[in-house]
């Protein structure tokens, strides 16, 4: 599929130019994007990650969500310099929560940036998105990668900061929410990094793969043509089987298109997933179906589930104003 772009090397900078033009609340200093207008005064939430997952990460730089985002090349982490610049720009003197996906490069970069700003007295806490159950066994849960569930964590952290919680409290609330969030994805077709000759993997016509990573990392199984109901059943079963500290009977359920898969098909899957949860006595109180965390034109979807108590439900329902979040 042809890319609508100019050059591969200009891809990220040009898309950020476009983003800033569509949202006058944002400012940009190179690869550091911050919410200049309409943001909160308290604890700042900063995220970052590779491009190619829009609206994740930078699209959530919005009231009620994150205050700043460090932007990497397509499928690469943000540079140390952009992490540092974003933290400095977002900080309001109340400390900064670094909230991003658990990828090796990103961790190193944010850690280095945090050490640098620490020299100037800016305090950072880190919470990692580790929701992808296909990227590690329950015993290795801390090594798991972050996928679309991170968006739910943005909302939690943003609402906690909005109500005036201090850095430790925001971090604790978000960490607890992360411990109650699980995702699993499946892919039906690959995507191509701008400038690359072709996709870095290929799925045959009518093939699908469960558990594939958002950069195309191999998954749990590859098979031909399973029905939507069959997929929904397996995804729900795997999510529910994964242990969490204190599971509740109320969940937020996010069905996310990785790009090419139409929302119609997410709705078909949603229908069955909600019914399966109901069978287990679990209610979906916050359904979200859309493009929240993509892999460019990749086909497929992810299902994310956050177990809710009253506190988390209230935070997810708190007012916000992000054009890529509407549930």
């Amino acid at each position: 599929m042809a890319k609508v772009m100019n050059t591969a090397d200009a891809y990220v900078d040009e898309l950020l130019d476009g983003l800033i033009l569509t949202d006058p609340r944002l400012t940009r200093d190179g690869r550091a994007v911050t919410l200049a207008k309409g943001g909160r005064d308290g604890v700042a939430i900063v995220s970052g990650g590779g491009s190619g997952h829009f609206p994740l990460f930078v699209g959530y730089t919005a009231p009620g969500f994150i205050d700043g985002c460090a932007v990497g090349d397509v499928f690469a982490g943000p540079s140390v310099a952009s992490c540092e610049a974003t933290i400095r720009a977002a900080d309001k003197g109340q400390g900064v929560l670094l909230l991003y996906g658990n990828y090796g490069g990103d961790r190193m970069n944010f850690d280095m940036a945090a050490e640098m700003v620490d020299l100037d007295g800016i305090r950072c806490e880190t919470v990692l998105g580790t929701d992808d159950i296909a990227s590690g066994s329950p015993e290795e849960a801390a090594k798991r990668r972050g996928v679309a569930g991170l968006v739910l964590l943005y909302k939690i952290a943003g609402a906690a900061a909005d109500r005036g919680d201090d850095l430790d409290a925001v971090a604790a609330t978000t960490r607890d929410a992360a411990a109650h969030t699980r995702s699993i994805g499946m892919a039906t077709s690959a995507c191509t990094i701008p400038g690359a000759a072709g996709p870095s993997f290929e799925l045959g016509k009518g093939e699908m793969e469960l558990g594939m990573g958002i950069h195309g990392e191999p998954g749990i199984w590859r098979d031909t043509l399973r029905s939507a109901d069959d997929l929904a059943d397996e995804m729900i079963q795997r999510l529910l089987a994964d242990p969490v500290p204190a599971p509740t009977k109320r969940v937020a359920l996010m069905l996310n298109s990785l790009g090419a898969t139409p929302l119609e098909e997410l709705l078909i899957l949603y229908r069955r997933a909600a019914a399966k949860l109901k069978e287990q006595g679990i209610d979906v109180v916050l359904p979200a179906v859309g493009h929240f965390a993509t892999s460019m034109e990749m086909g497929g979807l992810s299902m994310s589930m956050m177990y809710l108590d009253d506190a988390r439900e209230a935070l997810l329902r708190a007012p916000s104003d992000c054009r890529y979040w509407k549930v």
Partner: protein
Amino acid sequence: MGLTVSALNAAIDRAAAAAREAEAELNAADARMGDGDTGVTVRRLFDALAGAKPEDRDLGDAFAALARTCSGATGSSLGTLVTVAMMTLAKPLKGKEELPWAELSDHLADVRDRMLARGGAELGDKTMVDMLDAIVTATRGIDDPARLGQVAMDAASETLAAFRDRPNRIGRARMFADRTVGQDDPGMLALHRLLTATVATEASDA
């Protein structure tokens, strides 16, 4: 004789050329177990370094400048580990215009340790740090630059071969470690290709 800023600059140019040449090969190696971008990462990184070659004669300042360039140029694990390397070298070399070749191994040992601390990998996980470790050990005390280069290259080649049939133990690759058996680690492969080019530079500069 030892490492100077001008030798360093020449090495960077050679490495940048090597990176362009190896781009497709490295991407392909990474595609088999990671996200397929090691080649483009390394190419962009060394393009940036080659475009910002330090003018200073002070090795410490030169490495600090390279660290700054790195830190702004890439966000990949490999790139950040290179940033860590540059930062690690900048401090002890501050004020020096030449690093005796015999001391290089000790400095690279520091680099190795900082990389392990920062990246959280362990030796044996099958990463570029394993290759660096082998180079550190093999080159200890050697002060002839030609021999040092040859020994480093041999160590790199041997490490590549020795680890090929072992499983990767970090990042996403550990999830299907079995399938990484028989495959070169893309970061090791990158280091091997860059080293080959760099050693050629040093040899001709020596």
